[in-house]
């Protein structure tokens, strides 16, 4: 019987002929933790009597969620991570290096066919590179640091086939917000999602990351894509490792196959306080906003900053709006300086913060006030997500956020294109 990408990667890494619902113990190619999860992993490592990190060059800590530290308590946890990584010869990416889900691909740690676990739910981002990459908790991370292994239930796969061509002004963020609104927050729970079709193939690798990043917002374990020429070129430009692309067999068995024609799609917005609360931008256009955010592991890449800069070029951020920009990595920061995109954003009135998670998770860098509306390129809009449960978060593409920042209200970006 044919296999899905998920079944093939977990078979390869476990040495078993595995199919959906089998339990396997598999060799993990790369392990990652961030500053919200690694300190607990270190505690679990100690509780397990861990003596060292297995293959420490394939394990990294990233300090990105509260970076630089805004509080004494956080500083102590960062110090713990630095000390542990030094003692165990692990990699560490410190403040200013960027957000984990940009760094792990950008630094060449992951590619087609890889098996990666990260103690962060958006680890599924690397599925865009044809990697089985999934989020775990701190105790699982500790176990994988010690053993280099992890147990998995092989997931069933739900395939999303996206036909057609995205219209001008409509981006991969709009597409994934639309898909999540269609299948809901638990529509793919326990399952692998495969995203395919000509609308996906037409996207750049950067734009694809946005889609795989949000697979977990439909409950999925991984958000997989095929490794086409674009992926292979991207990976070769970032890594010296050899990777073997993995494709689904034509006779692979799927839990469901969902087909969409995206040619008429509008820019999409997820309204507060649910990611699956998506509507076409027209339904909320005119809603006043006080803060706009461009960045995060979902949409802080060069392409995103460039799209925003094109809209903000020669314009000013509305006087009632704060625009916060967080490049996803130091390299992207430098690249956006080089291309002039960053200059354009700053001239328009943006406040640029340290590469990393920015204000997404309510640790720092722009906590909204009571009753304020925030439009953000992030991946979550839960009540209290940005540290104020009386604020309202709308999720959108970089273009929609930029257009909204100019007008001071939620705006269809096609007005500016």
């Amino acid at each position, binding site marked *: 019987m044919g296999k899905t990408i998920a079944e093939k990667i977990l078979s390869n890494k476990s040495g078993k002929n595995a199919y959906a619902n089998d339990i396997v113990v598999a060799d993990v190619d790369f392990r990652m933790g961030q500053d*919200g999860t690694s300190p607990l992993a270190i505690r679990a490592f100690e*509780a397990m009597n861990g003596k060292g990190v297995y293959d420490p060059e394939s394990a990294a800590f990233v300090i990105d969620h509260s970076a630089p530290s805004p509080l004494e308590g956080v500083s102590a946890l960062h110090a713990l991570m630095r000390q542990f990584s030094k003692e165990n010869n692990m990699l560490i990416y410190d403040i200013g290096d960027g957000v984990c889900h940009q760094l792990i691909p950008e630094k060449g740690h992951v590619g087609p066919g890889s098996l990666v676990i990260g103690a962060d739910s958006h680890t599924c981002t690397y599925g865009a590179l044809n990697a089985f990459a999934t989020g775990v*908790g701190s105790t699982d991370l500790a176990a994988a640091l010690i053993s280099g292994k992890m147990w998995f239930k092989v997931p069933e796969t739900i395939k999303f086939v996206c036909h057609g061509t995205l219209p001008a002004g409509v981006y991969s963020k709009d597409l994934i917000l639309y898909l999540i609104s269609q299948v809901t927050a638990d529509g793919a729970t326990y399952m692998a999602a495969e995203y395919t079709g000509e609308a996906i193939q037409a996207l750049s690798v950067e734009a694809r990351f946005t889609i795989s990043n949000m697979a977990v917002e439909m409950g999925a374990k991984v958000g997989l894509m095929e490794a086409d020429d674009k992926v292979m070129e991207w990976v070769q430009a970032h890594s010296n490792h050899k990777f073997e692309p993995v494709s689904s067999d034509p006779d692979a068995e799927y839990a469901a196959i969902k087909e969409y024609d995206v040619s008429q799609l509008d820019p999409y917005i997820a309204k507060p306080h649910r990611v699956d609360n998506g509507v076409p931008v027209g339904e909320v256009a005119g809603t006043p906003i006080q803060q706009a955010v461009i960045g995060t592991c979902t949409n802080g890449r060069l392409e995103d900053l460039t799209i925003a800069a094109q809209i903000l070029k020669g314009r000013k951020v509305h006087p009632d709006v704060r625009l916060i920009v967080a490049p996803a990595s130091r390299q992207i920061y430098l690249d956006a300086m080089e291309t002039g995109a960053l200059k354009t954003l700053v001239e328009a009135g943006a406040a640029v913060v340290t590469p990393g998670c920015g204000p997404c998770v309510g640790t720092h860098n722009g906590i909204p006030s009571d009753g304020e509306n925030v439009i953000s390129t992030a991946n979550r809009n839960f009540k209290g997500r940005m540290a104020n449960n009386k604020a309202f978060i709308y999720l959108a593409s970089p273009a929609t956020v930029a257009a909204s920042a100019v007008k001071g209200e939620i705006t269809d970006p096609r007005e500016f294109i």
Partner: protein
Amino acid sequence: MELRGKAHCFGDDVNTDYIISGKYKFKTLDMKELAKHVMEDLDPDFARRVQPGDFVVAGRNFGCGSSREQAPLALLNAGVGAVLAQSFARIFYRNAINTGLPVVICDTSLIESGDELLVDLEKGLLQNLTKGIEVPIKPLPSVMLKILSDGGLAEHFRKYGTFHLE
């Protein structure tokens, strides 16, 4: 394992930000401190009201969102004996078992806040003592039962030094 306590009911899609907000969890490893804020954005009084052994009862997709293990740990440290839901998000489900918080998949639609419940994990049965109703519970996968019966994944590793599941 038999568990007894009162139900505290919540709805569908209770995410990990609601269980313990990001604004608290990055600051400390003191789970007793985090436990004071558990479920705060949904029910500001919950942490004060919950009694040791009580159950959090929810609808679908409990624990969706982030991978923070502080979520099950804050519930455990608040005294919650188990979480009962129609379904769980997968990372939370793993984290709960790994840290030793029992998670029970069953039909929760007839449970109301304040109901006295008795859960027998071995028999796979939930008794609603207040309403006199019995509901079957979905058995845990054998791998997870093994980890839970070892006292969580840390204890499992302390015992075997690696995964010993097959």
